[in-house]
């Protein structure tokens, strides 16, 4: 009888302890999973961020699926992902309270720039070690209007170079890409008369040229060819020449500081909420390298689930911090956000509920 009583008591205590344990677990964020989806441009940086964040916060799992910006945005709108990675901010018509399944009915989305990467114009031309091009010339080459390396337009910008009488093979991305979008936007903003097509992920069908699959495909095609030119993420530009872009008489290399400066020189899209940092990139401004890809983290202003909100706050807060930006610069070759912008993103992240 005694034994039975003791057993029963032990069982009750044990189960009470077990339930208490459950409750404690549910209260803390320690066992939660954060799901993000979106731009493949952020892939290398996100992998680094996830690894560092999970090391610092044991028990937290962050999943980032690099399925593409469009897939990320639709997953975020459907509430399937807590945050989206996107190579462009949400457009005005995509914004609006109540349009996002993961956010509360009165909550809008926030676009936070977290990843800035310069796009290099790469070339392979034997005997030419340095090359300067202005946007109109780059546009002329990629539209097929400038077909030879010794074209007067190129020769004028490179008086010292010995330019051969060789056909130019311009290589572009075969797959849809945010890199293409930002590159074509650069040409459209800086040389609108030559490049008359709007920015788009897909290479405009009006302009022919050589197509290669992915960043590595473009770099491989350019480095393996002769008289080739292409565009790729600056961190991937190996074994090729990197052209300087001449804007308003000044030459710029695709370097981190000159690339990150574009966000400080650009204005936020008018009519957005105070904490929404969706930039209209002004590639014509002074002192910036114009061909830059800016990738965003899209989050809710107010999450339906407060646990998710606190996870997003700590994760996105980390990636936009000086430490997170430096980690991405080392791992992915991105350009760290300026201190000023880091502070703005931090203020926006702090406002997430």
């Amino acid at each position: 009888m005694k034994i039975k009583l003791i057993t029963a008591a032990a069982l009750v205590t044990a189960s009470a302890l077990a339930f208490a344990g459950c409750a404690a677990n549910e209260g803390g964020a320690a066992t939660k999973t954060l799901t993000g989806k979106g731009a493949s441009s952020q892939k290398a940086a996100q992998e680094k961020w996830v690894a560092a964040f999970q090391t610092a916060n044991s028990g937290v799992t962050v999943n980032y699926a690099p399925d593409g910006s469009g897939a990320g945005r639709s997953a975020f709108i459907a509430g399937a992902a807590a945050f989206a990675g996107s190579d462009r901010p949400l457009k005005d018509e995509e914004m609006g309270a109540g349009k996002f399944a993961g956010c509360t009915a009165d909550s809008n989305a926030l676009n936070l720039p977290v990843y800035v990467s310069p796009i290099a114009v790469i070339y392979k031309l034997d005997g030419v070690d340095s090359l300067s091009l202005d946007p109109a010339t780059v546009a002329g080459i990629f539209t097929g209007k400038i077909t030879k390396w010794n074209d007067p337009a190129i020769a004028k910008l490179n008086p010292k170079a010995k330019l051969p009488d060789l056909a130019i093979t311009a290589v572009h991305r075969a797959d849809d890409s945010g890199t293409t979008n930002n590159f074509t936007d650069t040409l459209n903003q800086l040389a609108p008369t030559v490049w008359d097509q709007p920015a788009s992920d897909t290479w405009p069908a009006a302009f022919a040229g050589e197509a290669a699959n992915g960043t590595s495909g473009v770099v491989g095609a350019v480095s393996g060819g002769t008289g080739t030119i292409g565009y790729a993420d600056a961190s991937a530009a190996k074994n090729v020449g990197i052209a300087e872009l001449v804007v308003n008489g000044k030459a710029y290399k695709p370097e981190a500081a000159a690339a990150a400066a574009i966000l400080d020189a650009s204005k936020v899209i008018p009519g957005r909420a105070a904490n929404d940092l969706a930039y209209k990139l002004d590639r014509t401004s002074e002192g910036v390298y114009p061909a830059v890809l800016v990738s965003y983290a899209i989050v809710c202003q107010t999450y339906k689930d407060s646990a998710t909100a606190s996870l997003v706050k700590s994760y996105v807060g980390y990636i936009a911090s000086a430490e997170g930006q430096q980690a991405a610069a080392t791992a992915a070759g991105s350009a760290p956000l300026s201190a000023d912008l880091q502070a703005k993103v931090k203020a926006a992240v702090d406002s997430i509920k």
Partner: protein
Amino acid sequence: MSTTSALPDTGTSPLPTVDPRRVGDRVFGGLAAGSGIMILVILAMVAAFLLVQGGPALFADPAKLASQGYGEFASWVAPYAFGTVWAAVLALAMAVPVAIGIALFITHYAPRRMAAPLGYLIDLLAAVPSVVFGLWGADLLSRSVRGLYGWLNDNLGFIPLFSGQVSGTGRTILTAAVVLAVMVLPIITSLSREVFLQTPRLHEEAALALGATRWEMIKMAVLPFARPGLVAAIMLGLGRALGETMAVTMVLSGGKNITFQVLTSDNPNTIAATIAQNFPEAFGLKTNQLIAAGLVLFAITLAVNTVARWIVSRRAEYSGAN
């Protein structure tokens, strides 16, 4: 007399095994029939999957496809369908003569000691994964053929095939076709080798006895007998060439230009490569549209095979094999 006494012995012992043998027969027959039906079911399910998943894009409003997909379906898929067939035709044009040559060499010319290892080597080529062929084509072949392409363009540029602006990277549809040709070569070679070996010895000896040279014997006895098998071998090779994805994705500079020029940068892409390149970032209607393109590829393969079967059956009576 020992035979008569032995007969009942053998007669009694199989008796109990008669029943199991019938069961075995039935089981095996059932398994074989099941396999045969299964391949039809699998084919039907693939077709159904393509129809259901691709349907939304096939029957979508062109305006909606233009805004959410890749554009109006027929005009979007036409260059890729053309590129698929064109690359495969170029590949077969290069691979078939070489493959038949190798197979004839192995079966009728090579000394026996050499024939067997050569056969193994060819079969080994079939085991190389396509991504390796892709790397080889993109990194090595395309670089080394640039000079040849320039020469072709300079000297034979009056032929439309070799006209236009030569690509500076060599990643043209001709390079892709060479890679495809190397990939289909072992398939066509091994099958035609087997077919050539099936030629009745008597036909060959009869031809030689009538005073035919070895080449005449091959022309009179071997090739007519092998024709249906050859067509089947070529069709299998064509199937691989039509559907090859990875190597083409890596090698070909594919666009939307329907052209017969084989040396320029601006080539039509193939359907399989288009799907592979765009699927990772596709969502919504774009996914449907890519799957619908897969349906088109399925239809092309089916049509090509049907036509080939029809050719074989039409020529069967003149094949000389009977």
